[in-house]
């Protein structure tokens, strides 16, 4: 359950764009209503009020509003600041001048899994439904990660989009700038949808999506405080302790080692009518303190009633079953918590661990299906 990288807000992405000489509309960001009236006067009308979120779909959710006068803009700001998009709260509004342009195109650089290379995508038309455009309107170029962007690709892409018409050079330099940003900032995605081509041939990025690889943040420490801003309190607590924890809609907490096994446990719960509420991947550790810490996070979630039972599912490789058993005996002492906990162990030192836990009155299983049925049953 890895995320798709750290998504910047539009206004942050546009700060990067300007640094790389990609033109953007004149705009001002506001976290809340403070000072908005001044920005409205500064920008003039009509202007666009845009929800700042780290997830897509804000347009369809009503997070973009074109305002003709101050009263309308203020109302839109108020409404949008209180919105959630795809369950995530809006982090602010971007007020932007309207750009009038006869032509809109689509540009993106992303990472292509099959070729393990960057991929340039260019679409003759931009917009909210670009993924359902006919395939011949979108072209792709696989780029060499070891080399500078070739003139050939720049020529082909700009020619494909504008057929040598007004703005061809601007599109060319926009793609070049996107490539430099993509490389320098460890991006998973740099997307402009749409790129406006004005009557005078200027290329202006009306929207900006930049996603940065989480695993590269040690090279971009200035961005560290932005990672994790959409996490819940429990997810933040877990992250600070170095665990990958995701809150899910169901009511059974799952602690397992390895992402694949955790997914398999969640799938198995579903087969028996249960549903995962917390996903915690222990990773490869044999440190009893780490295991206790992870158990502590889920016991807390159980105690506050967000989840109603707990399934610990371990395959003992690096993590030995008896280490887990030991940690459980020391961490889960409360009778009510114990009664709603099911442990499923397989692998290294399985027999000792099962025996220890049985003696301590834990519900211990070795079969995954049986353990999942138990975890569904002991919910209270």
């Amino acid at each position: 359950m890895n995320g798709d990288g750290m998504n910047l807000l539009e206004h942050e992405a546009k700060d990067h764009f300007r640094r790389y000489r990609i033109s953007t509309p004149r705009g001002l960001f506001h976290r809340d209503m403070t000072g908005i009236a001044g920005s409205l006067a500064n920008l003039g009308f009509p202007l666009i009020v845009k929800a700042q979120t780290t997830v897509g779909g804000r347009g369809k959710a009503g997070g973009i509003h074109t305002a003709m006068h101050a009263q309308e803009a203020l109302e839109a700001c108020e409404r949008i600041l209180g919105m959630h998009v795809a369950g995530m709260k809006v982090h602010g509004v971007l007020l932007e001048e309207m750009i009038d342009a006869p032509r809109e195109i689509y540009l993106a650089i992303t990472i292509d899994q099959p070729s393990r290379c960057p991929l340039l995508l260019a679409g003759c038309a931009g917009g909210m439904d670009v993924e359902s455009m006919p395939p011949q309107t979108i072209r792709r170029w696989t780029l060499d990660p070891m080399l500078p962007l070739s003139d050939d690709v720049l020529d082909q892409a700009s020619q494909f989009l504008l057929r040598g018409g007004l703005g061809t050079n601007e599109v060319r330099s926009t793609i070049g700038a996107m490539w430099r940003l993509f490389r320098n900032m460890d991006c998973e995605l740099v997307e402009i949808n749409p790129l406006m081509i004005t009557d005078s041939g200027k290329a202006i990025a009306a929207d900006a999506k930049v996603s940065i690889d989480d695993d590269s943040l040690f090279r971009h420490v200035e961005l560290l405080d932005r990672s994790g801003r959409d996490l819940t309190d429990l997810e933040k607590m877990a992250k600070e302790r170095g665990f990958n924890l995701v809150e899910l809609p169901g009511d059974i907490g799952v602690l397992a080692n390895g992402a694949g096994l955790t997914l398999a446990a969640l799938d198995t719960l579903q087969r028996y009518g249960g549903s995962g509420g917390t996903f915690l991947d222990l990773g490869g550790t044999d440190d009893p303190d780490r295991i206790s810490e992870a158990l502590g996070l889920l016991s807390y979630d159980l105690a506050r009633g967000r989840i109603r039972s707990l399934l610990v599912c371990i395959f003992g490789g690096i993590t030995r079953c008896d280490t887990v058993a030991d940690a459980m005996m020391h961490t889960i002492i409360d009778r009510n918590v114990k009664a709603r906990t099911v442990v499923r162990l397989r692998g290294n030192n399985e027999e000792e661990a099962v025996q220890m836990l049985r003696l301590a009155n834990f519900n211990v299983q070795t079969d995954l299906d049986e353990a999942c049925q138990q975890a569904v049953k002991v919910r209270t």
Partner: protein
Amino acid sequence: MKGGSLLTEHRVLVQGITGKQGQHHTAQMLEYGTKIVGGVTPGKGGRIVHGVPVFNDVQRAVERTGATASVVFVPAANLEQAVVEGIEAGLETMVIITERTPLHDAMHILALARRRGVDVLGPNCPGLCLVGHSKVGIMPNRIFREGDLAVVSRSGTLTYEVVHALSSAGLGQSVVLGLGGDRLLGTDMREAVEMVLEKRPSGVVMIGEIGGQMEEEASLLIKELGVENVFAYVAGVSAPPARRMGHAGAIVSRGTGGAWDKIQALEASGVAVGRSLGGLVELISNRVSE
């Protein structure tokens, strides 16, 4: 063929041998019978770890030991440099255990390796086992049983789980390949399946999970070659659809990536897909054991 050298026995170096993980798994690999001939940690040349000599750089280690492969435990921040060093020193195969490799570093490493004809497994993989002969990586020693099945997997513990269950059911393996959990991998599912078929296994077991297009691509190959006795399990049927930003992902993936997309693609190619872990082992047991 690409990947051919992964399935041969090598003289193996451990890059990052003096770290906690490196030391522990060196001992485990030696116990399994792997020919671990040297280790590399810059600045710690001259030491000995579990009887294995440590060198300051890969070049020297290769010259002194005749190593042809390495298993890499160095931290992500130093990985690119370590892999470049291995490639420059002429290694044929590199197995990368390191987790959390930046994607751009992975693109560089994998592009360079391909250019030089070096086979890479990983990053973020548990390694591989030529059962009964050699284990390179971090899989637990005791889960295997000698036999004729081939296992290829994107997961770590889920692989151990399945292999352990197969062994307990009397279904032995000749090769187990852990491809890794990252999005960018040196060897993907399609390449791995193609590779293990050279070993003429009695069956191929694929363990996939949600995300990416690897299972879909492998299923195309299976259909094309008309391979029989292929079994699969795909984890993540209950996972909510991935939150996505932007349109590029949707343009590139068009109807692939979800657990059901993968299961459908596999079944359309004649692969028997187990709907649970227990179900998978039962399927294999019914078809292969006689």
